[in-house]
């Protein structure tokens, strides 16, 4: 195929549709690319077979050829998925090929949507493919915060109802162990523990997207498993002790308490250990105390916010000032 489609008898019946870059009008087109000739030819044949809506082996091979030259070409991925289903191809084989492409092109939306389209097929994949978590961990070994891969993994959890699958939590814990600042892993953990499940529409927090429920109530679980919340809070504390200035576990803990409808006050003792006069080990602890004191000891709350503003997080001065003003209005 590398020698060209024009000389290939298999393609003799196709009249390629040449690239129209607008130059026929006489105007000089903008933002043009010096396409390699193989790419120009392959995409000319792609336009032709797509116009005819051809579902064939040769069209499938053509899509692979175009992808090898430009995996960001979203059109060719969508066309490829349609052909795969139309010809009832072996999707396991497709996944194996896709794994290689994924590892080669780490920042690509299309690959992950394509994977989702394949695995969505209940006929082919009534349950999660056994090697799927291993492959995702291989991706995370390259980039542990890859947004596309995490988006896909979140979809996978929902699609196959994997919230309580031991493997999900194991992988999250391994990633947090390797880098306690992997916020993507913390987000995944939150969704496993506190996200909406089953028939409830997907959301970053429960109670969202319902106009009858105030956004203040977002994240608040209707039924709380206190043991689970306690275990998550304990986990967060262990991780905070490892690196107290890491925002991720602090905000995870806030999420857990919010889910349970419990206040920040119960952590006052733990948090206080990180704020000892001039020995402040965590700006997040100072902020936590400010929130605790905001309830009843506004002077102390202002003191905490002022510490953040003046010493521990001064780039956010205007925000801390806003918080101080909010306290004044409440008082």
């Amino acid at each position, binding site marked *: 195929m590398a020698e060209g489609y024009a000389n290939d008898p298999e393609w003799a019946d196709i009249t390629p549709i040449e690239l129209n870059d607008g130059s026929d009008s006489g105007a000089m087109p903008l933002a*043009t690319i010096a*396409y390699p000739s193989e790419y120009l030819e392959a995409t000319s044949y792609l336009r032709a077979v797509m116009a005819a809506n051809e579902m064939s082996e040769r069209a499938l091979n053509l899509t692979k050829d175009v992808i090898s030259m430009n995996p960001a070409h979203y059109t060719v991925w969508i066309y490829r998925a349609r052909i795969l289903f139309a010809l009832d191809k072996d999707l396991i084989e497709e996944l194996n090929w896709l794994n290689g492409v994924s590892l080669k092109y780490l920042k690509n939306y299309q690959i992950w949507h394509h994977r989702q389209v394949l695995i969505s097929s209940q006929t082919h994949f009534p349950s999660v493919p056994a090697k799927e978590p291993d492959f995702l961990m291989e991706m995370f070994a390259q980039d542990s915060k890859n947004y596309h891969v995490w988006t896909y993994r979140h979809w996978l959890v929902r699609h196959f109802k994997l919230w309580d699958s031991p493997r999900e939590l194991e992988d999250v814990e391994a990633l947090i162990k390797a880098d306690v600042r992997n916020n993507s892993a913390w987000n995944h953990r939150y969704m496993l523990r506190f996200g909406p499940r089953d028939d409830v529409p997907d959301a970053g*927090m429960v109670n969202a997207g319902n106009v009858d429920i105030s956004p203040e109530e977002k994240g608040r679980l209707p039924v709380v498993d206190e043991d689970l919340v306690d275990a998550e809070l304990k986990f967060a504390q262990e991780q905070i002790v490892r690196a107290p200035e890491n925002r991720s576990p602090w905000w995870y803990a806030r999420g857990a308490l919010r889910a349970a409808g419990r206040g920040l006050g119960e952590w006052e003792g733990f948090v206080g250990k990180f704020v000892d006069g001039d020995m402040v080990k965590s700006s997040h602890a100072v902020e936590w105390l400010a929130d605790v004191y905001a309830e009843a000891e506004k002077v102390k709350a202002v003191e905490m916010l002022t510490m953040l503003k003046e010493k521990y997080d001064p780039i956010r001065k205007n925000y801390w000032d806003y918080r101080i003003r909010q306290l004044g209005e409440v008082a």
Partner: protein
Amino acid sequence: MPPIIAGRHKRKVRFPAANLPPAIISTPTTAQQKHTGKKSPSDLKPGKSSKSKPITASGMASQEEPRPGIPALFTQPPPIRDPLVTETVQLQDATVNKCLTFLKGLHVSQQGTLNASGVPALQRDGHAVFLFESLEEEYPAGFVAMDASRPWMVYWALAGLTLLGEDPTRFRERVLETLRPMQNPTGGFGGGHGQISHLAGSYAAVLALALVGGEDAFALVDREAMWRWLGRLKQSDGGFSVTEGGEEDVRGAYCAATIISLLDLPLALPHDAKKAREAGFKTLTEGLAEYLSRCQSFEGGISGSPGVEAHGAYAFCALACLSILGPPEETIPRHMNIPLLLSWLSARQYAPEGGFSGRTNKLVDGCYSHWVGGCWPLLQSALDGKPQSSGAPPTTFGNLYSREGLDRYILGCCQSPSGGLRDKPGKSPDSYHTCYVLTGLSATQHHHYRTNTSITSSETFASAFSWQSTPVRADDNVYDKADRLVAFHPLFVIPHQAAANMRLWCERQPIAT
């Protein structure tokens, strides 16, 4: 005027192919190393091309004294540092080390350009030349990945040039002829000729046409087909997929709302809006705000789709979409938990860098000057409440972020010595970053607010067309007067007048449903 006479002939350009814009909102790109066989010199992965030096209060990588006029906040590491080093810390240290040289005004390229605040001047001509070239010269073969994003390349260059005070209308005919083959008879624009229509490409194409303006540009869009296509993209959960058969995300929501409002498309669902009709929706916008509400994460920020990690680019898309759908002081508090959102958004700004990161524990990147920076006028407008009946700017909570920090990051760290703007020191410039870093700079230079007067007489979207801006007072700016940029509309990311012209022309050509 920049010293270039453009468009006479085509030359191969010398853009470094190692560093294309990240796929934040655009139809994506892939790693370019495959094409060049080279690794980017800025590859920060620990253990690979750069060894990060740990930063301690006593052991800075760059020990030299900063130039005068620069506060310690921007020359010192943060006051608290955890002993535990992980990959995140290594990457962060390497970034801070690189930035400090620039923030202190010590980089060789900054010599002679610093003002009294220790901030380098905006290299206006260099950036304009960079954008003219990105528009008019042929990209080398290594850029083939951009073949699915060509409307973006036109938009980024035109928008950046407009911010710099250049007149984009001289490109009108060429823009029209470039985009015309990308439009599909079934509605929308693809990333190039023969590619299926994509919401991101359609957004960029519509904005590029608005930038050059004129009846021919507005009439190029087949608005009725666009409306029908949008109906087919509308999903049963209220959101939009970006293509037929493609992924659904918050980009889709924002791009659709922009297209619907600028082109004055009918809100009623077209007949073939199958999924939306089955879900019981009557209009294109119904259920959209609720979908965005479900994208707020427990951290307070907003993710690309429900349940994923909060991300700066998607936060802008969601807040801008809500602010198109209705007045921000109504739509944002109705659908977002504001205290959580404020906290997360505010935490995106780092010191000493001064710039914004897109996610918790990720690095600053110049493009978030727009994606995160652009959230602030919208949120601040939501907090300020209803516009004044006098039409005057509101008594305001003011800026809740550090304009000075962002200006220092943009002018100090994001300007490439050879023209164009970039993610961070060590990265190559590209038109994506040039456009959005300049957009961010412009936003720091203007106070954006809404008035009671809208350019549209229709009630729908009245709020979206009621924004005005005034330049920020000069006395506390760290940049010079000569570095001021044109103001952009905070929702549509083009000049206010360009948005108004397109909307008003379309209102005079109603589409029969």
